[in-house]
């Protein structure tokens, strides 16, 4: 399965395009998306997540077109946004169980799956508004893993992590990227470059490769 962007242009509202002429094809592995602030890393991930429909071009995961069949497209993807969850009066396990239902996890598997992903990211249950920023970062990562996605999109996952958490994240990404496409937008590529299959650098004109 490959993630393919074909001449994608994307932007917000009536504003100018943030991405233009974005074309690439990625197979399984860990791929870093880098670029200066405002270059469109988050926009690229949102397009890949099917959240932000492109103004032009095509986004495909395998044989599924994100715009033609958005539901089928999102069945096998997991997305961890850059922003952290802010949900008062909500416990992590209950929220992940709710998301698992939205992602189509069968009721019989739901409890175990939530427990498994929480264990995988090293998170214990608790009130979300009592979590540290590092724990909330791990919470969105857990949310993205609930459906064991073929395409995992992580926006700045290294933010707010202490050195020990960063090491754990690197090992987790190495494990996850073995058999799925993991696309990580990051301002700190050096923290993750050791295990990366390649790096997409977003420039004004599109995307260029750096290393493979």
């Amino acid at each position: 399965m490959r993630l393919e962007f074909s001449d994608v242009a994307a932007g917000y509202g009536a504003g100018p395009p943030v991405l233009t002429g974005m074309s690439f094809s990625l197979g399984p592995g860990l791929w870093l998306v880098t670029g200066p602030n405002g270059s469109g890393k988050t926009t690229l991930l949102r397009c890949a997540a099917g959240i932000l429909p492109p103004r032009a071009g095509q986004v495909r995961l395998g044989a599924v077109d994100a715009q033609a069949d958005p539901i089928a497209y999102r069945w096998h993807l997991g997305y961890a946004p850059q922003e952290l969850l802010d949900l008062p009066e909500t416990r992590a396990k209950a929220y992940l169980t709710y998301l698992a239902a939205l992602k189509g996890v069968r009721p019989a598997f739901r409890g175990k799956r939530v427990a498994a992903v929480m264990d995988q990211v090293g998170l214990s249950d608790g009130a979300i508004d009592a979590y540290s920023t590092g724990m909330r970062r791990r919470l969105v990562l857990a949310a993205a893993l609930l459906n064991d996605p073929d395409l995992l999109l992580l926006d700045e996952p290294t933010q707010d992590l202490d050195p020990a958490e960063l090491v754990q994240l690197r090992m987790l990404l190495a494990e996850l990227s073995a058999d799925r496409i993991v696309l990580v937008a990051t301002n700190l590529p050096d923290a993750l470059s050791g295990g990366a299959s390649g790096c997409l650098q977003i420039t004004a004109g599109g995307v260029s490769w750096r290393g493979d």
Partner: protein
Amino acid sequence: MTRDQADLIRELTSREATGGPGHTEDAGLTAAEAEAVLNRLAGHLVPQPTTAETAALINRLRPLLPRPAARRFRTSGLSREPLAHFLRTQLHHFRPLWWLASLGFVLLGLGAGSFLADWGLSPAVLAPPLIIGGVLYSFHSLRGAALELELSCPVTPAQVALGRILVPLLYCLVLGALPVLAGTITSGPAVLVAPAPAFLPSAILAVRLFLGWAAALFLFAGLMLTLTLHFGTYTAAGLSTALWAGLAGLHRLPLSPFSLSHGALWTPLQVGGLTAGLLLLCAALRGDRLRRWVERRGR
């Protein structure tokens, strides 16, 4: 000499390695010289990792082993659930406090029922603040990371928005039965002051009360959803509350939806309000509107 070493010596002393035909004899390497050097190099010792060091390395690498077993979850653990199940999942957002607070508000309103009647206000005046509060409660957390996470699930933005509004809408509709029952059981036709025909049976009275309630509910639900998707929950709540207050203040007017005076146009007006509410709801859930909402809220 091993075969590898013999091959290596042959390579070292070949024309190519020594620089070709122009190469001088002095700089050249004979097979004997090459063999001597290689024999000495073979004696070069380096420290070797201990068994414990190798075991420690293996332990560090073990977590990095691929886990193909995870694939089994992906193939057997997911299923496409019908829409009804999706709606059931939306109940997660509503704490027991909200259910009780909504019920309490309606009961409070009923307690003030005679005051409402004195002012010429129908029980339907309670519906808008109930649904405004419900939509505000339901949508206020649907922003930022929470919105992006839900939108990245295999559900459409319309389903996300619909799921969030259907629970408070249906609950408030059910709660509307309370003032209707109270109105018909306790006060009977007196709930509707003249000039409502006194010969109206209680059932029809109940229907009229419920129609008034539903019309106000759907109208303000549609309004709240439309305004929420355009301006955000708090602005929508403010604008809707202002409109409600304005209409409640104008209840003495015959065409006011909250008036107890039922003229000939009362029923068409309520049906119109109900229809307008439904149309607003449908219009709000259109793809292009929702796309703009997603772009604004998720940015």
